[in-house]
């Protein structure tokens, strides 16, 4: 990834500012501090704005090193989205439709972040509609297993589904809140199910803090 140009930086700051105003988002860091070390932020997914708002909630120098993982079919539609995804968020676009065995999304993620970047993932896999948090997909587990040094930071995004619900395109400026929790890692000997359950509980715990 090339260094961002002056214009791209300006657009990024402006966009982050706008996202924060529209979503009224306040970021809380509980037992965790913003850091430029390599991390995987994982959060619940209720709105199209989730990735943008979570990305905006990070301090500028962390934001520059953090790349959301997003669905290719959504972000490649239209030149605005494509420009934003490729040049501003530097999103890692994953093809949800045909996943090839020899190019698994997890490998693609690991290759992209190298030893520099962090990721934003939504392990539910799709936007959920209800209050309930859907079970996590296994990608997070494989990320943790292949790169045990990555800090896995849970985040809970509250109220954003009311700002921009599914199927709507005009946001309403309600107050939302993002809570970041303490980092976690894959424990020694932990099974996939146990780990995914623990990760999901870590996100849920932040809801009631």
């Amino acid at each position, binding site marked *: 990834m090339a260094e961002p140009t002056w214009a791209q930086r300006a657009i990024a700051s402006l966009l982050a500012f706008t996202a924060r105003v529209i979503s009224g988002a*306040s970021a*809380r860091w509980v037992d965790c501090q913003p850091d430029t070390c390599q991390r995987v932020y994982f959060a619940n997914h209720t709105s199209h704005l989730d990735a943008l708002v979570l990305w905006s909630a990070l301090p500028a120098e962390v934001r520059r090193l953090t790349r959301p993982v997003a669905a290719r079919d959504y972000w490649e539609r239209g030149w605005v989205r494509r420009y934003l995804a490729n040049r501003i968020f530097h999103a890692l676009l994953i093809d949800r439709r045909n996943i090839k065995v020899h190019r698994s999304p997890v490998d693609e993620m690991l290759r992209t972040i190298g030893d520099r970047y962090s990721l934003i993932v939504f392990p539910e896999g799709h936007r959920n509609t209800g209050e309930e948090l859907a079970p996590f997909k296994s990608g997070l587990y494989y990320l943790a297993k292949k790169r045990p040094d990555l800090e896995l930071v849970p985040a809970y995004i509250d109220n954003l589904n*009311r700002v921009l619900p599914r199927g*709507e395109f*005009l946001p*309403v400026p*309600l*107050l*939302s809140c993002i809570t970041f929790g303490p980092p976690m890692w894959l424990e020694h000997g932990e099974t996939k199910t146990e780990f995914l359950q623990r990760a999901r509980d870590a996100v849920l715990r932040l809801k009631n803090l």
Partner: protein
Amino acid sequence: MSTPEAETLWLVGGVIVLLGLVTLVSVYVKRRRDLALDPAAVAQFHRRVVVWWILCLLLATAFVLGRYWTVGLFGLMSLRALQEYITLTPTRRGDHRALFWVFFVFTPAQYVAVALDRYELYSILIPVGAFLFLAIRIAMAGDYKNYLERVAKIQVGLMICVYCLSFAPALLTRRLPSQVEQSPSSAALARQEAVQAQQPPGDPSASDVPPTVTRTAPTAIWPEVHEERARLLFFFVLIVQLADVLQYAWGRLLGQRPIAVDVSPSRTWEGFLGGVASATVVAALLSWSVPFPVWQTATLAAATTAVGLAGGLVTSSVKRDRGVEDYGTLITGHGGILDRIDSLCFAAPVFFFLVQGAFGNWVH
């Protein structure tokens, strides 16, 4: 820009000096942990002081920058309060488009109408226009679950946070009947002076100018805002905020009988009556700063502060119903603007209509 009137300097200067003293006390109390005061109460007091400074600066803009800025700033305050209110109120997916209209059409339109002094528009836009529109729009969304409740909640939010509050900056745009008859605005003065300058003394057409225009100093420091009206707005916010504090103080000192114990145990009849009475006395003492005689000022203050304090009770029951302490604590990290301005919201229309209707005609 000419120099402000002495009354303005005394009123605003006095409030700033007072606020300075209160800030010193607040900082002192916060530092001195050995006084064994309730830390939550100290923090609450500190937050209030900060909000007073913000309000004070905001109102100072009315004198310096003119009415458009003031109306705009009140508009932003409305939006923020509405944001807090709607966040707290459960709405459903079907309300989304209606909410979009509330935030991006009705609220801005209300304040634009106020800024342009279109009374016939801003007096009915929300109670009639938004009332009908929201009911229809939410019905069209096709979700009938809790329909009546949802429509009512959004409508009440719009009425309290936007419609009522907008009558505060509307004070700046309306002209007192007394100003039309007795003390002409600076523009009228300037016009008449120009007429006098053009015509040689002794010209018979100049003789119909009323004697009041012999005053040479224009009364406004900004052509669009009559300084007297800006002072009236300042006075209004001052007495309502003062009544809030005094109610708290009297309630702490003498509070025995809660008005509605389930809604708010700290709001007592003693606090309420004490707050209204003492704010009325202060208002009467400050009557030199407003264009009304003492007894009218006192009546105005009593009615306004009584409704304002009652408004605090109303928002308390909304909060109690939703099970939260403050609008600000709903989502951590947000200060609750609505907690601070609820009494202003309720008092503003009362003050406006009393000034406009009843007392406007009786001015000395």
